[in-house]
């Protein structure tokens, strides 16, 4: 998804773009994502600024591509089960408002108006109209098509070509070299491996997320609904399972419940404790789901960096190399803003927001390019 957005905005900046992927379109984490475009879960700071920019760009793409990418500006609803959690949530929302987020407190008695099937007894919530939804695989495929970029699916990058002076001039693939004055690393969870091919260090790690998908239902869940402890979970450094699922209805009918966040490496095998936690969390929010059937579950690997911010922009250690990866569970949502920033960096334009917090080389303590 991030690569597709980079391709779109780079092409629209007048560049000739080629997209290389070892698999098919959306074959990595994109195809295992939920398509959450969230501002609600982000605290004031660089990620929220990127999310707000991205949300604006997604809305533009929604006007342009609309139903083809299943863009739905449905809004988010964060609920709190106790007065204590509610107070913390309201404080959090107040901070977000000063950063430009629309966050409307909702009293307990008004919750049923927004979500008629929500469990009774909630202390209250906050409504975030800027939260939205896309179908990630369709979005990636449609953005790539809209970009007009030439696609090279099924091409594995085996090396990054660097001149004697260190300048990057293309990539080597298992099916031949592709020359270009700029290479964008949008390899997601595998972005660290690609950086290593260029001889630079980018400590991207996988975090497993399971998603549960139910049978198709008439629209019964209207927003993206989740419990307030999710906000704390995103920044969690705990290796243990922490789940507070986002529950949402989709245009196609099924309810999506996700995602878990576990640090278990690249293990794709089914985790019954993970799906148990998802199901229990979802039923806690919407009791009617108890009798609804899960049709499938899938896992994806969210790429994260130690400070939980993505790496975006030029890499001074390898001139010509740009990074756009490490978005953790927010890669779909942050893709558009990332693509815009990368396109601006590629064409030497002033970036729309301060890119300093996303500097790819920020994890180097010695400043060198040794891995």
């Amino acid at each position, binding site marked *: 998804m991030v690569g597709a957005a980079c391709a779109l905005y780079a092409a629209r900046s007048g560049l000739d773009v080629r997209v290389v992927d070892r*698999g*098919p*379109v*959306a*074959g990595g984490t994109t*195809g295992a994502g939920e398509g959450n475009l969230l501002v609600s879960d982000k605290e004031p700071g660089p990620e929220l600024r990127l999310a707000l920019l991205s949300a604006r760009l997604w809305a533009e793409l929604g006007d342009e591509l609309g139903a083809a990418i299943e863009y739905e500006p449905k809004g988010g609803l964060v609920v709190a089960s106790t007065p204590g959690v509610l107070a913390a949530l309201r404080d959090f929302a107040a901070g977000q408002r000063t950063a430009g987020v629309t966050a409307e407190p909702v009293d307990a008695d008004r919750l049923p108006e927004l979500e008629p099937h929500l469990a009774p007894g909630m202390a209250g919530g906050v409504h975030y109209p800027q939260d939205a939804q896309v179908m990630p*695989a*369709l979005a990636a*495929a*449609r953005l*790539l*098509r809209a970009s007009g970029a030439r*696609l090279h*699916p*099924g091409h594995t990058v085996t090396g990054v070509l660097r001149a004697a002076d260190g300048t990057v001039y293309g990539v080597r693939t298992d099916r031949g070299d592709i020359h270009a004055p700029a290479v964008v690393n949008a390899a997601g969870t595998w972005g660290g491996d690609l950086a290593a091919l260029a001889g630079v260090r980018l400590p991207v790690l996988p975090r497993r997320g399971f998603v*549960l998908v*139910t*049978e*198709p239902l008439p629209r019964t869940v209207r927003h993206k609904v989740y419990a307030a402890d999710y906000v704390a979970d995103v920044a969690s450094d705990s290796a243990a399972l922490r789940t507070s699922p986002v529950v949402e209805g989709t245009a*196609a009918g*099924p309810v999506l*419940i996700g995602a878990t966040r576990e640090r278990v490496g690249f293990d794709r*095998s*089914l*985790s*019954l*404790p993970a*799906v*148990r936690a*998802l*199901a*229990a969390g*979802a*039923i806690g929010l919407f009791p009617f*789901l*108890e*009798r*609804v*059937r*899960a*049709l*499938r*579950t*899938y896992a994806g690997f969210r790429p994260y960096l130690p400070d939980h911010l993505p790496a975006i922009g030029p890499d001074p250690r390898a001139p010509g190399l740009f990074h756009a990866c490490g978005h953790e569970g927010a890669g779909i949502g942050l893709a558009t803003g990332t693509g815009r920033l990368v396109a601006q960096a590629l064409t030497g334009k002033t970036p729309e927001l301060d890119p300093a917090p996303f500097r790819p080389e920020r994890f180097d303590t010695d400043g060198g390019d040794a891995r």
Partner: protein
Amino acid sequence: MTERPRLAVVGAGPAGLAAALAAAERGVRVTLVDAAEQAGGQFYRQPAAALGARRPQALHHQWRTWERLRAGLDRHRAAGRILHLTDHHVWCVARDPAAGVFGVHALRGPAQEEGVVVRADAVLLATGGYERVLPFPGWTLPGVVTAGGAQAMLKGGLVLPGRTAVVAGTGPLLLPVAGGLAAAGARVAALAESAGPAALLRQAPALAAQPGKLAEGAGYAARLLRHGVRVLTRCTVVAAHGTDRLEAVTVAALDRDGSLRPGSYRRIRCDTLAVGHGMLPHTDLAETLGCSLSGTAVRVDDEQRTDVPGVWAAGEATGIGGAALALAEGHIAGRSAAARLRGTAPDPRRWAAAGRARTRLREFAAALDAVYAPPAGWAERLPDETVVCRCEEVTAGEVRGAVDPLGAGDLRTVKLLSRAGMGWCQGRMCAPAVAGLTGCPLTAGRRPLARPVPLGVLAALPDTDTGLPETGDDLAEAEVGRTAAEVGHPVADAGPPETD
């Protein structure tokens, strides 16, 4: 270990029954878990007792083999060596590699809303196969059924699905289905088989090594002749017609290159079309356990072991080959599991006869597979507007669009971009058609949930890797999500175990 080891056998068709009997005879406590109300699987499907069928054997071949299996099952159940759990629909088998313990998760009850888990030291997957049906215009009309579905109705319910039937597609199932329909009183207007008689002859050496099978085939053919059924070889269904339900089908002759011969189109009035294009193995449970596949089937060694310790597989799940092959494989798997569970290596010489039968029948299956290939060119002929994925109502045109212009190159991406295979059946029905339409290789889809599971059952799972309760080691089966009674394994003296 003083306690005898416990083997869970999933599936009570020919392979599962043979395996359960072989293991139980050698001192293993077997829990036989099956979705049907009675043992037998699809091959030995029984009419519900309430229907009071007087001569169910009229619809069955190899009735004596079945009677032996059933007598063995009854004997071992009475002796407490086999616990037969009927109406248990397995949705997942979870493994704890460290403890060497498996949790077999099933749904039961009339609405399949009760979760139960079976504890086992080893698992034998005899999950069978399912039918491949390739789409054509009109295939979603009421009155169009799968060949296997028609057979199941005949064997299980003794209900005649219609009055005038056409049987079409390809594969060895079509003959008995047509014969069964005719014997049950339907008028079978035609049997349209897309394989040609010449192709059958080319496989003569392998077929000739199978006198039993040939006799079986000859028996079906004689039955068809007796009922005056027209058998059309190298012929395919072009379309099914009707407004509210099936009224007629158009069939046409296939040229050697797979194209339809002009002028050969013929319209046949009928109210039932039974159509099938062979079978595919059920591999969901094996895949989730991490077992390697070979093509679309579970890969096994000479002892029917998968590459996951403690997991065996037998029957159609390891490759489509029919009931006789399933019996041989199940027998070998059950003996191997019994020996391995006691910590000894089995002696293959003890199952030499079953081993020889397995070799012969696998060769036969490979020969059949070569004869009964889906008709060439069917995918190119399919009009864009024909629905391919019935659950999500995705048309052939939409499936093609996932490849061009959207750039999908494998089944998973086609699914993501077109929704084909995302519905109730999770692509079991449409995946072969989608593969054919898009030119993507047919790969087994990852389906960690082998069937739809109520969220309430998932939420009530014990918080362990296998989903087994922490306590209750001695129980063969525990309810999940209810605090009600737990079912213990019947305690009975099974006598001294027979050794290999």
